[in-house]
């Protein structure tokens, strides 16, 4: 109980600090890091739900992210929807697409899903580039307008300054992580872990793996789609580079270093590694190489991440006091 209380205090303190940052600095670099952390933490949190908890290696997250971005941008600029409805529609579209690719490939195998998710991400890039009449091709949709939110109480919030986007993405990230936390700490999360740890055993206990896998995929796609829909208005442009493999690689590093299946580990890794793209900015050409090096080093030194290391310690603690009793 006291450990839980201490954790709640740390979380509240961290939230307070993150909330206060724009009050102390309007430095764009700091706020950009904050936006990057909020965005990547939602993407890696979703990937953790699918890969870390349910055991499905997925490369599709970036596709859901971009679909959300394109859908929100088109709905807002072409049809005059508001930012929130546009982003929500983008998220729902991404979730629907996730259900389709999940349902069609998961009936074969886990590996089929991994391959299909990779093909899907590549296909998104091609569609964004070549379906010019919808996506305007390689030029993308530039000059996205600064969105306006009608807040309860009648005030209109024009989201134009970096600090506004910081709060928008920060707010959504808190909501997204609350949802993910609610799922993974519930018996739904327990069933997902059971499926990852031993699928036939789970089946023999009445658990329908397909239903839980689809739930994880749809939820992660929904959150990735919404965060994509919000993020493109911060960038003020959406073009095919939103499907870049760089996003996938960053998410994977965050989940693997944080520890697949560890909520706090992955969240912490997202915070630390969100700074990575900018720390490595001095060498754009070598960035991907360095990412690869970081990933390999992590796999060698921390094969199951920070979360996995903590779990190993938990098991070791039980093993020590009881000498073999067989």
């Amino acid at each position, binding site marked *: 109980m006291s450990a839980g209380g201490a954790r709640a205090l740390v979380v509240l303190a961290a939230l307070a600090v993150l909330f206060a940052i724009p009050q102390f600095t309007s430095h764009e670099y700091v706020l950009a890091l904050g936006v990057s952390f909020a965005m990547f933490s939602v993407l890696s949190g979703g990937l953790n739900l699918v890969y870390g908890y349910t055991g499905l290696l997925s490369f599709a997250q970036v596709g859901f992210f971009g679909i959300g971005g394109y859908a929100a941008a088109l709905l807002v600029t072409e049809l005059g929807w508001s930012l929130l409805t546009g982003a929500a529609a983008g998220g729902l579209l991404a979730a629907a697409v996730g259900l389709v690719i999940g349902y069609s490939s998961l009936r074969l195998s886990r590996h089929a899903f991994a391959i299909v998710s990779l093909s899907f991400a590549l296909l998104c890039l091609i569609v964004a580039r070549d379906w010019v009449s919808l996506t305007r091709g390689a030029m993308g949709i530039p000059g996205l307008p600064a969105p306006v939110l009608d807040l309860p109480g009648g005030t209109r919030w024009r989201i134009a300054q970096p600090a506004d986007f910081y709060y928008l993405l920060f707010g959504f990230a808190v909501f997204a992580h609350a949802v993910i936390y*609610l*799922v993974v700490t*519930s*018996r*739904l999360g*327990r*069933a997902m*872990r*059971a499926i990852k*740890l*031993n699928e*036939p*055993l*789970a*089946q*023999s*206990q*009445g*658990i*329908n*793996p397909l239903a839980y896998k689809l*739930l994880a995929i749809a939820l992660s796609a929904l959150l990735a789609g919404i965060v994509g829909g919000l993020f493109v208005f911060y960038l003020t442009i959406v073009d095919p580079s939103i499907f870049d493999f760089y996003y996938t690689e960053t998410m994977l590093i965050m989940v693997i270093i944080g520890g697949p*299946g560890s909520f706090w580990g992955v969240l912490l890794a997202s915070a630390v590694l969100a700074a990575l793209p900018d720390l490595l900015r001095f060498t754009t050409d070598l960035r991907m190489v360095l990412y690869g090096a970081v990933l390999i080093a992590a796999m060698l030194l921390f094969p199951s991440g920070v979360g996995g290391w903590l*779990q190993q310690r*938990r*098991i070791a603690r*039980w*093993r020590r006091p*009881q000498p*073999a*009793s*067989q």
Partner: protein
Amino acid sequence: MTATRPLLEVRGLSKHYFGLTAVDDLSFEVDAGAVVGLIGPNGSGKSTTIDCISGFQPSDAGTWRLEDLDLTGQPPHRIARAGLTRTFQTVRAYDDMTLLENLCVAVQESDTVGWLQALGRGPRLRRAEAAAEARGRDLLATVGLAEYAEAPAAILSYGQRKLLAIAASMMARPRLVVLDEPVAGVNPTMIRHIEQVIHKLNAEGVTLLIVEHNVDFIMSLCSRVIVLDAGRKIAEGPPGLIRSDARVLAAYLGKARAAELESGHG
């Protein structure tokens, strides 16, 4: 006199792998409250039989039902929810979960708490989880693992994992439990312990179908034994009769040795 329907009724089960016949037109029954053994030499089709009736292998022909529920062709999770659970030859457990979690997860699909209720953590969920935890602790006490309730399953020895698997298969109060080689590779002390556990569970009303190579274990535990050879049922009856059945001896020892024994006795 009205004939009561058997708990499990298998009719005409067949399974072929690429022209090789694993199970050939097999029919058998398990009565409620019984402990039935399914034995036979290696490759006689025991594992295939239980993989088929638990939904893990598609069958080529045949039907099976649990009382009035037709389970033919159903996926494993439906068969489990209908009340037929099983353990596995290669012992399966959720290594990263505690023993208690291992047991609670095994029962969560058999209560009526939906996904939204599970997320909402309302009184209904809390009651269901409290009941699961209480039953889990009971079963851990029954199999003798109570002191490890909060420990991760990864620390258990091989025999203890077999006990955990038996406990997990009982969690949802199934109508029939199929144990796949519950004592294979287990030391003699642990075998006696597992035997006592099964006796105790049967006394509480659990019906069991046990697949095993250890003939002594089967003979002392089962009220009825079914013997398979080359996918066919070659004998069925109480252990005493099975022990001296010529076809069974021939299947296990080879025809020549069986005849030798027979003449030696006669």
